[in-house]
């Protein structure tokens, strides 16, 4: 076992993580970065080794995002990074200088919860709640990704313009978020209900547009039916 370590003078016994002493390779390196988090700009000094997750939690006091594994495997740290979901634990803060971040604390509009947050409550989509901030941020992005026409590994026809968010699609798209309490069934139901409401809304919008423009009547009904069918 030791031969692996001895061959590289930089690796202390026990796997390269010094047990509290001075790290190998010199003193910590610091950098000053700017982050816009939930609409507020912060200018902060960080260790180059710090992840976005650690900066959010330790430096900005935003403890909604959780650390489950610190290896990209559980999704508890999921945030929206420049509008896209990402694992805060794998993203180095210094590499995202200037980024716009939304955490679970920023999903609601003041006291008004987002439709997904409402649905999580309505469907009992959590038990202990530890994975929930990551689930909510991830699910928020899943709705956006589907609306943008992104396919998934279970999309029957990946050339189709808009995938339908059925239960199988939701399970696949949410597979980067683990829940130790096993609240999956209700998480899927909450997401499905939110997606269906959004679809009904856009169908209704399309129908209103139809009656407004009598010329294009038949064409627009065709579109509304197309949306409804999903």
């Amino acid at each position, binding site marked *: 076992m030791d031969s*692996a370590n001895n061959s590289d003078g930089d690796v202390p016994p026990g*796997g390269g993580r010094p047990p509290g002493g001075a790290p190998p*390779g010199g003193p910590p390196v610091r950098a000053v970065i700017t982050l816009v988090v939930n609409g507020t700009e912060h200018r902060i000094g960080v260790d180059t*080794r710090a992840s976005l997750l650690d900066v959010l939690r330790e430096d900005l006091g935003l403890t909604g995002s959780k650390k489950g594994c610190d290896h990209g495997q559980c999704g508890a740290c999921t945030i929206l990074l420049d509008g896209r979901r990402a*694992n805060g634990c794998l993203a180095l803060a210094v*590499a995202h200088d200037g980024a716009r971040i939304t955490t679970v604390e920023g999903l609601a509009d003041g006291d008004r919860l987002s439709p997904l947050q409402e649905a999580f409550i309505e469907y009992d989509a959590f038990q202990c709640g530890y994975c929930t901030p990551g689930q909510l941020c991830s699910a928020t992005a899943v709705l956006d990704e589907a609306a943008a026409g992104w*396919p998934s590994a279970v999309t029957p026809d*990946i050339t189709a313009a808009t995938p339908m968010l059925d239960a199988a699609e939701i399970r696949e798209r949410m597979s980067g978020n683990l829940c130790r309490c096993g609240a999956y069934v209700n998480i899927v139901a909450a997401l499905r209900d939110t997606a269906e409401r959004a679809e009904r809304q856009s169908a209704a919008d399309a129908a209103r547009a139809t009656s407004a423009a009598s010329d294009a009547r038949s064409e627009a009904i065709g579109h509304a039916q197309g949306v409804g069918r999903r």
Partner: protein
Amino acid sequence: MRPFVYERAGTADDALALHDGDARYLGGGTNLVDLMRLGVELPGRLVDVAHLPLDRIETGGDGGLVIGATVRNSDLAADPSVRASHPVLAEAVLAGASGQIRNLATVGGNLLQRTRCPYFQNAGKPCNKRAPGSGCPAYEGEHHNLAILGHSTACVATHPSDMAVALAALDARVRVRRRSGGERPVPLGDFYRLPGDDPSRDTTLEPGDLVTAVEVPPVGMPSRYRKVRERASFAFALVSVAAALDVADGEVRDCRIALGGVAHMPWRARRAEEVLRGLPANEESYIRAAEAELELAEPLRDNAYKVPLATNLIARTLSELGSGERAGGDGRAPGPSDGGLS
């Protein structure tokens, strides 16, 4: 984690100039940061290449693609022209990792991600890949998900990338900017290497060489990617296959087959391809071709299951391509419980 200096490169030339011997390029960091945290990678400097202006996907007049090295995995898989012209590539990317990881991961980083061999990832263990000369505990130890083809007694690791398997089937070339000067396209089969007696190198790149793009020629036939893993999603492949098949008058005119999860590099199944060309396009031919390839396998104590798994997966995928049907008939990705595969 060892402290490191962070530099953000604005151009490819900057990146090369900023790379000293102690540096690593940083893409999305989804593999590198993890390995640094594990004490497996110990760079004194990170040169961030994720912001280089290499984030475009160009579609050529001939139907080929040039994919920039900093294109995010999610953007590659969502690109409408990639989905239409090279479905096997989009499917392979979508079969890998999770939505949040694909948003961070770059094409360059995906190609150069390191093996998931458990001993390689544990800095307290011997491993010829991480600490040359220290031995390969996987050979006699935990290797149920390691190589059955092209391995050596020095290393039985597999390459974990799904995307690279599709690129192997597609005859892709990796554009590399050399530290020693010049930029040239390297065929994927010469980019990766087998372990031999030097498993410390995954690829033929020299330290500081920068991947700038991947060139993908047109396919011209239906193609697809199938992956079998230990759970239905968010897991590395036990075995995967990227295949393309051209059938005319009931006969196989042309085909491409590459395997993932079986070797130190994406495994182009040239022997299966040779056997298959000219045979009637039916199940029997597909099995015969797959078996011809898997005759080359030298399974370890605990991974012989991959031989029939790979054989059946090749045959099933070719059958689907030949008949125009989708996975399992219901369009769902195959899981381990998918009948007939194992």
